């Protein structure tokens, strides 16, 4: 009988120990988290970020404890230099955010976790004594460009464009060519038409005028900007637009190819069920790209939409990053 009592005590003890470990651990775990916001990342189909809005104050650290419940995600805050945090399924990673300027910041997933990856976004509302900085509206709004309208290039080069050759005509060019505004607000095709109409340049053949346009585009960017645009494109755009810009990225391969210049507002709206269900346009197609001004391309990146599945990048990229992207896009056709 003594053995039986001892045996029962052992059973109760063992199970009690297991439950105790669990309960104490549970409490300790909870206490640790009072100053920490725990966010679970899930594919948008499974619920997205478990928390999608965070209230904070300037210069007050935000402690985050992040994990993924399904696949690898990434956590990054748009328009900030917080490094991207990789979220491995089942593993916790801690990070601290600090904002010195008030405003609304967007955090987003940086990994192509699924077809709705880009919907994984949340906002951090940072309050502070300073007034939130007001940025001027983007150029496409100032200029009143309709980014949903078709923008077919009326002319395209017949031969490869050489900015190098274009540089030799720099002295003969009219003054407006050197204004940044000209570059930003006009498409390569319209700059070409304008230069073609210049009587001073009548001696130049069509190809040379294109070389001049290429040179203008090159002058308005820098190798570092193109390099930065290239890596931004690879990280954020290539999954849909394709690595070479042909609109055949892995995320859209099952979608139909869009009809030529189907950016028709009315069309895409009347058939809203097909909105977002075509591949993006071929960015290597000169007809398409040479008809777009940098301001127009920037607008498309900022606002997204256009009746396709294009996400809006305005809250995520800084204006420098968008400029870099736009200048990189033009390298697809030069």
């Amino acid at each position, binding site marked *: 009988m003594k053995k039986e009592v001892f045996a029962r005590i052992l*059973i109760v003890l063992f199970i009690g120990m297991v439950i105790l470990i669990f309960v104490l651990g549970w409490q300790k*775990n909870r206490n640790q988290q009072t100053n920490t916001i725990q966010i679970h990342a899930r594919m948008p189909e499974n619920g997205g970020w478990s928390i999608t809005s965070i209230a904070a104050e300037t210069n007050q650290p935000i402690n985050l404890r992040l994990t993924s419940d399904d696949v690898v995600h990434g956590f990054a805050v748009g328009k900030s230099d917080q490094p991207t945090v990789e979220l491995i399924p*089942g593993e916790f990673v801690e990070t601290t955010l600090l904002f010195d300027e008030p405003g609304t910041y967007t955090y987003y997933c940086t990994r192509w976790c699924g077809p709705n990856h880009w919907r994984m976004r949340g906002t951090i509302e940072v309050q502070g004594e300073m007034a939130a900085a007001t940025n001027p509206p983007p150029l496409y709004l100032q200029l009143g460009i309709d980014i949903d309208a078709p923008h077919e290039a009326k002319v395209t080069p017949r031969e490869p464009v050489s900015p190098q050759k274009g540089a030799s005509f720099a002295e003969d060019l009219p003054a407006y060519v050197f204004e940044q505004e000209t570059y930003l607000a006009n498409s390569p095709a319209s700059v070409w038409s304008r230069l073609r109409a210049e009587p001073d340049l009548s001696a130049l053949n069509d190809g040379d005028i294109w070389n001049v346009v290429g040179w203008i585009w090159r002058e308005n960017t820098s190798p570092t900007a193109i390099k930065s645009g290239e890596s931004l494109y690879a990280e954020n755009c290539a999954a849909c637009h394709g690595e070479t810009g042909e609109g055949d990225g892995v995320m859209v391969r099952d979608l139909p190819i869009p009809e030529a210049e189907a950016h028709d507002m009315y069309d895409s709206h009347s058939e809203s069920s097909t909105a977002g269900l075509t591949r993006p346009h071929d960015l290597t197609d000169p007809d398409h790209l040479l008809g777009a001004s940098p301001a127009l391309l920037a607008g498309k990146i900022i606002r997204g939409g256009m009746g396709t599945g294009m996400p809006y990048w305005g809250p995520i990229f800084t204006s420098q990053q968008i400029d870099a992207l736009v200048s990189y896009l033009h390298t697809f056709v030069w």
Partner: protein
Amino acid sequence: MNRIDLTRFPTINLLLRSRWPQFLIRAITLAGFVFTILAGLFGPVVGSHNFAIIFVWIAWWSALKLFFIPFGGRSWCSICPIPMPGEWMQQRGVFSPTGKGFGLGKRWPKKLRGNWLQAGGFLLIGLFGAVTLTSAKVTAIILFSIIALAFILSLIFERRSFCNYLCPIGGFTGLYAQASPVEVRVKEKQICAEHSEKTCYTACPWGQYPLALKSSADCGLCMECLRVCPSDNIMVNLRPWGSDLGQKAKHNLGDVFLGLVMLASVLVDSAVFLGTWGQLKSAAYEVGSLPWLIFAGVFLIISLGVLPGLYSAAIWGAVRVGSAKTTFRKTLSKYGQVLVPLGLMSWIAFTVSFAFVKFSYVLPVISDPFGWGWNLIGMSGTASIGQSTSWSGWIQILLLVIGLFWSSKVTQQISESKKQALPIVAFSGLFTVSMLWLLIG
């Protein structure tokens, strides 16, 4: 008879005879069971980081097939915690019986005897396997339901009715224990015949009478008979592998069905978990959806139609060739033992293909069982998928070939002629080739 009686060694005898070592291990496995349920319910939702998933489906499930069964037959049953709470009630003692316990002590209904329900349970595991194996919560709920069911049944029925007739793992282990190198037998039959009290039968939680034991399938190696025998007439033998198989083996249709279900399960599991067919994986996972219904239908057709059909065709061939007067039904049962080595080696090969690759997940989940960022043994966050080495493939081929060779040998032993054995060997060969294709590609 080339047996080694382990009870002749004083230390082993002491370890087997004393209730303490077994009790302590079972007390620990019971606590581990509770812990696994808690971890499954409250731990991380990511399978590779959840103690319940990794411990049950990687560590335990692999150990069962690579270690417990091939080297100890039903040795897992001897330390399984599941019948413990029920037996505590039945015997009024968790350590040893202390008098009349609770429970109605009814006999298990005759119609429900045999391996049929166990085989059905195993089919259910297969149908819902993709979810069970990946969802920690489902795993925890199943574990809890099993122990609750075992407890309730032991209050209604006598002895280990749950283990004997329902537990799918009991069916699995029992089937392949026939090939294992361990057995409990009586030393002198005469002594038993003269002993009128049958203390061993009364004490046996499995309802077995050691004198009548011909196969290790139904003996749970609990050692109770060894402990209560007044004449010290029980031995625990090490024996050659596959000793229960052969001319003398008793078999029934339930065994054949169980054996075929196990073959179908290892085929389907290999296709779902090791195959490269993404659609099959998602179909198996989306329980209730149309693709899942198709998957379930195909699974059931393979296990209840195709495999039994092929097996029956082989038996039909064997009956036609044979000279002795025998019925188709009897032959069907007789050749059931061929499925034992064939299935066992296939399950081991299947396990080898993932156990070493996935083993690296085990230590990290011990280190952080609830996913709260603990680091108990300094191994958290070290999980990485191991590399499938080339020798793993060779081992799998070797295991499958051994399985084919072994089952062919058994076939020949119980056949009248080589000609009669041929259709059955062809069936085994076809199955082995299918496994080779699924595992090695």
